[in-house]
Structures are given as C-alpha cells and as structure tokens.
C-alpha cells in the first residue's frame, strides 16, 4: 500500500500480504510475457508478468526481488500434491488457525518464512486441518507479483 499521512512523504508499506525476499534466478520471455523464477532460500517461486526485461529493467538474473501474493490466493493441500498444475508449492506446518463463520486464516511456518492463507472455514473442516499439521501452501504463477 502506498501511504501518505502528512502529504509530505510517500512511501510504500506492504501490509499483511505475503512477501518473500529472494533473487531472480531465471527470466523467460516470450513477446509481452515473462516468467520469472525467484530463488527464496532453497525454494523456487515462479511469477508471470505482462512485462519484459525491455519494458522493466529490474527483470535480470541476480537482481534482488520480493515475491508478493495475497493470503486469499494461497491454496492449501494435504498429502500428495504432485499431480497439481500449480508451480508454487511450499511445504510447511500450520502454526495458527483463526476461524470465522465463513473464512479461516492459517499461518504456516515454512522453510522460507511464514505464509498466511485465507480459505473457507469449511475447507479447514473438510481437510481436517489442525495446528501442527503438515500442509502444502500453493500459489498460482499468475497470482505472484514481484517488487524490488
């Protein structure tokens, strides 16, 4: 979020969204589209952008970059998730569950940091998820934004 309280200064605060700091490890461009691979510790995340290294010079191998995605875009899986098309699958352990009437918020401890996910409360029940369980946090490539 871009916030200016005093009208004097502009600065960015990304509140609450998942933000994982990494380095660009691969840039694959075709026409107007680019798929970026972002190395975050031992994990690789992929993001697709309507951009190319020409239109956006920050897209180069080795450049530090943050992968950003909303909690509501994080899909939760249990057990075998190898046959799912999603590119971004991160294994972790449920640290905290906050349940509302319709939605639930899961906080997942992973190797690359804490990932928050908002899914339906019913899904938490159906998957029988409780604190301490091992789960996969998964994000579609087109839901991952990047920022310097």
């Amino acid at each position, binding site marked *: *979020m871009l916030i200016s309280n005093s009208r004097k200064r502009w600065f960015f*605060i990304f509140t609450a969204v998942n933000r994982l700091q990494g380095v660009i490890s691969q840039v694959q461009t075709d026409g107007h589209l680019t798929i970026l691979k972002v190395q975050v510790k031992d994990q690789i995340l992929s993001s697709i952008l309507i951009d190319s290294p020409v239109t956006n010079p920050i897209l180069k191998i080795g450049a530090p970059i943050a992968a950003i995605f909303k909690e509501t875009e994080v899909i939760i899986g249990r057990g075998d998730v190898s046959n799912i098309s999603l590119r971004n699958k991160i294994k972790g352990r449920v640290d905290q569950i906050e349940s509302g009437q319709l939605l639930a918020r899961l906080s997942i401890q992973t190797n690359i940091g804490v990932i928050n996910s908002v899914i339906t409360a019913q899904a938490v029940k159906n998957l029988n998820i409780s604190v301490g369980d091992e789960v996969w946090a998964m994000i579609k490539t087109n839901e*991952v934004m990047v920022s310097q």
Partner: protein
Amino acid sequence: MIRIEITKLLKGAQGPFTLSAQMDVNEGGITVLTGPSGAGKTSVLRMISGLMRPDAGIIMVGDDTWFHSGQKINRPPQKRAIGYVFQEYALFPNMTVRQNLKFALQKSQQPSIIDEVIEIMGLVRLQDEKPMNLSGGQKQRVALSRAIVQMPKVLLLDEPLSALDRAMRIQLQDYLHEIQRSYQMSVILVTHDISEIFKLANHVVSIQNGVIVNAGTPQEVFSDHNLAGKFQFTGEVVKLETQDFLMIITVLIGSQTIRVIGDQSEHRELKIGDHVLVASKAFNPIIRKLS
C-alpha cells in the same frame, strides 16, 4: 518549451530559505507543482507571472524572454501572456458573468471568444447572473473562464479547486481538461490532490523546501514503478470495516469506489483519508463491453 531557472531567497515559517528551481515545461500540456505548504510553489507561479522578481535566473516561453537577470529583462505582468486563477474567486460582484468576462477582454481581441468560452464552460444559462447568485463551483468556473478569455499562453492555477467539494472538483477538472485541449494552453497547476494529479497532469514537479525533489509523469512520481503489477490505481481510503480477521477497505478512485479485502492488521496501518495504491495482477480483472 517553457524554460524556468530561478533562484530567490524566501522567508519561510521556519526562517529564510532559497528557492532554486530549474524546469523545462512542455508547451500545451498540464504541469503540476506539488509539495508541502511553504515549499515555494506559489512563489514559482508568482515569479512566472511577474508579480515577484527572482533574485536571478531566466524565464522563457518559446523564444520569448520574460525574465533574464543577466540581460536585465523583466517584463511586467501585463506584458506576459498569462492567466492566473487563485483559490479565491476574485470576481467583480457588481458585474454579471458575461460582464466579468468582457472586462478581461483585450482591445485587440474578437468579442466572439466570450460566447465560445461561455459555451465550453457551460455558463450559457448563468451568463446574466451576478456572482452572489452563484455557487462556489460556478464562481470558480467564471474565474477560470475569465482567465481563458484573454487566451494566455500560460495559465497559472494556484489550488483553484481546493475549496470545492469533491463532486464539484471532479466536474471542474473535466472543464479544465476540455479547455486545455481546445486551446492548447500551457497550464501550470498547483495542487495537493493526488487523484487530480493523476487525472490531469502530463508532468509533475514535486518541490520541498525550495528544491525540486522529484519530477516525471504522475506514475513515475507517485507509483511504485518497481512493482510489476499492471492493474494499479491510486485512491483515497473512505471506509474501513472489520469482519473476523479481515478488513473490507473501500477506496475512492476518481469518482468510483472499489472494495478490497485486506487483513485486519491493515487496520493498524490504514486510516480514512489515507492515499493508497491499489494493485493487482493484470490476470485477474475481467472486461465487459458496455453497450
């Protein structure tokens, strides 16, 4: 090209400071000067208009030199082709709208311009009214029209819309856009309103303590251009609602509101009136043709 290179020692609230501004303004566009109060924005306008004399520098509009300290050129305000509109309306109270415009007309000008401006600015039905019978927005429309009648090369606008309510402001922004396009004037506008800047400005110059700290397109100056999100808007938070661990954030963008789901922890960061960037991946929005 309008070339402005000026320095001037100014008295600020926190003591004297030197205004030192260098900028090239493209003719026929809208350039916004923005920055905190007391930064020197109004002084820049006053020096362009000739109401204030720079200590040193050059002001050139095309090939016309309006001020040149080295060559000792300093044209008086009436010899500079400018229109100047302030936040206050400054209309003649005893004259009708039409008479106010007529008063601004120079001898060499065709009177038909008055009808044209009255038409463009939507003043046809108000032309025989006196200022006391007009709303704030209408008065400011007249003040703008009066400045335009003289066909200035440079139209200087010092927060002309800031005293108006939002609906009126949006309407006047549309008028301003229209006249700038019709007459290809160079407009230099002082404003704090971010949505106004995004709507109107071709170029933004941000001034702090008499120094230009940033310049470029609104997107370059105010957006996180390092964020690769193609669906981005800036707006103002108008409502924050909590539900469970979620926030529903209502943001006014232009004249439309949108609602975004956020995390409750955003409640601590955000408050009503904050300017925010709303960004999403360009893959999410759907587009439907409006018939």
